[in-house]
């Protein structure tokens, strides 16, 4: 498969849209566990990225630069908990894409591995802490092992998103240990983590993007 800088920007545009559509939903999840702003924060960050996509990134062909701008823009626009987390994801991923205008399946796999490992390192959360790591880490493991087996990124990523979905859902049954909801104890049970949800949305959007791009 091939994935171009244009496709990468389509993916980012799609995330912009998905985050707008889920703004209320993500905030609602965060009202139950935290301070109720997760949807707002994601929206602010992705709107800022959208502006870049419509201006200085219009002619950008270097996938690495696109990711650097995405990460930096997100971080500068939102701060918050997710600013450094997602920004680190994009900045680490940018290293994989450096100077590339076309990406192979291997590149894409390496991107998401770097993306997720970066977030894990930045936040220090473990699986089971009821954070976005519960979505991302199973996705990472699934992606790695399936890609190794078949060398087929689309198939492997499809599996990976399924694992992410399971991981996201698992947060309902977890006690909070990180972030704003960590003091909730028992009361955090039954509620899905907002960051786990936005992380899933990002992965899922990548899957639909590569599928739509491939069929073209």
């Amino acid at each position, binding site marked *: 498969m091939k994935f171009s800088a244009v496709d990468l920007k389509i993916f980012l545009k799609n995330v912009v849209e998905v985050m707008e559509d889920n703004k*209320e939903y993500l*905030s*609602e999840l965060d*009202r139950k*566990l*935290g*301070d*109720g*702003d997760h*949807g*707002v*924060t994601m929206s*602010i960050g992705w709107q800022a990225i959208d502006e870049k996509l419509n201006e200085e990134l219009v002619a950008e062909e270097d996938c690495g630069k696109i990711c650097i701008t995405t990460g930096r823009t997100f*971080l*500068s*626009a*939102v*701060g*918050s*908990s*997710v*600013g*450094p*987390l997602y920004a680190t994801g994009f900045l680490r991923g940018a290293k994989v894409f450096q100077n590339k205008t076309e990406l192979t399946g291997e590149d894409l796999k390496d991107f998401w591995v770097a993306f997720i490992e970066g977030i894990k390192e*930045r*936040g220090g959360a473990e699986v089971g802490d009821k954070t976005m790591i519960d979505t991302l880490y199973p996705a990472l493991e699934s992606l790695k092992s399936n890609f190794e087996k078949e060398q087929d990124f689309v198939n492997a990523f499809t599996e990976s998103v399924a694992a992410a979905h399971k991981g996201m859902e698992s947060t309902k049954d977890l006690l909070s240990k*990180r*972030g*704003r*909801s*960590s*003091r*909730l104890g028992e*009361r955090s049970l039954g509620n899905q983590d907002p960051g786990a949800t936005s992380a899933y949305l990002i992965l899922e959007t990548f899957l639909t993007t590569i599928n739509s791009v491939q069929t073209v």
Partner: protein
Amino acid sequence: MKKLINNPTHVVDEMIEGYVKAFPKHVKLLPENKRSIVTAKETRPEKVGVLIGGGSGHEPAFMGYVGDGMADGVAVGNIFASPPPDPILEVTKEIDKGAGVVYIYGNYAGDVMNFGMAAELADLEYGTNIGTVLVTDDVASAPKEEKEKRRGIAGEFFVTKAAGAAADKGYSLDDVVSVAKKANEYTRTMGVGLTPCSLPQTGKPSFELEANEMEIGLGHHGEPGIEKGELQPADRVADRLVQEILNDMPIGSGEKVAVLVNGLGSTTQMELYIMFRRVEQILSEKGIEIHRSYVGSYSTSLEMGGCSVTITKLDDELMELVDYPADCPMYVQR
């Protein structure tokens, strides 16, 4: 949700614009980020810089506390969201007078990451020495054995006061950091929430309570607390809050403290004084001497209803620092 605003997306920027226009002799906005505010007064060379910050929506915290005897600069985040590293860095560069800068902020995941990244970058890019003090005064936010996990709420006022006064008195970076850490170590806060606030952008209440309910230990951003129950008379609420604090940090007869009864946003001064009255009764029954009292809205959660009680133990050094004068747009002490 009824608010005197223009556009929910611009509330923070417009607030900051109004703020620096209101107090041009006190504060100024730095050019790069619209979220970096520093004192407008000339600061002494070799003075340790005191940098505070965090999400907005807590006014007068944190931006109101820039001025003589308090902070030299503040990085302002979106509502209830840590500022990103950029404005923190911009403030750092401006207030570093060669003696380093101390970062004081509440122990929230977002703040820890963003200030942490800024501290690394400040060291890398400008070679600035950064000291860091995390405020962890919220008793309700974690058990005593995990005190390092606790979050920062109204007690940040005292930590900033101590650091700001110490820096002004010429303490070195290490000494400012130690005394601020001591202030944090000696400070405990317990809060109670009665009515929610709502973010301008969602308009939704941050939590739900019945008409006759209160919530003990409610977080500074509407995060759920440790216990919901029927609204009690003010004296009983004060008893509970003070008891939790004293269980966590015993204070002996004859010891001196500073007390802050803090309104969360929409609570009247009348209620805060009624609360203070009882706090004073309890402490004086135990022979604990209130050296200085603060009553008012020092750290809010938008228009949340409720209050918190903060107690800081004072040794001679902290007493001197608490008594030290301050002159900020939203807080002046002579």
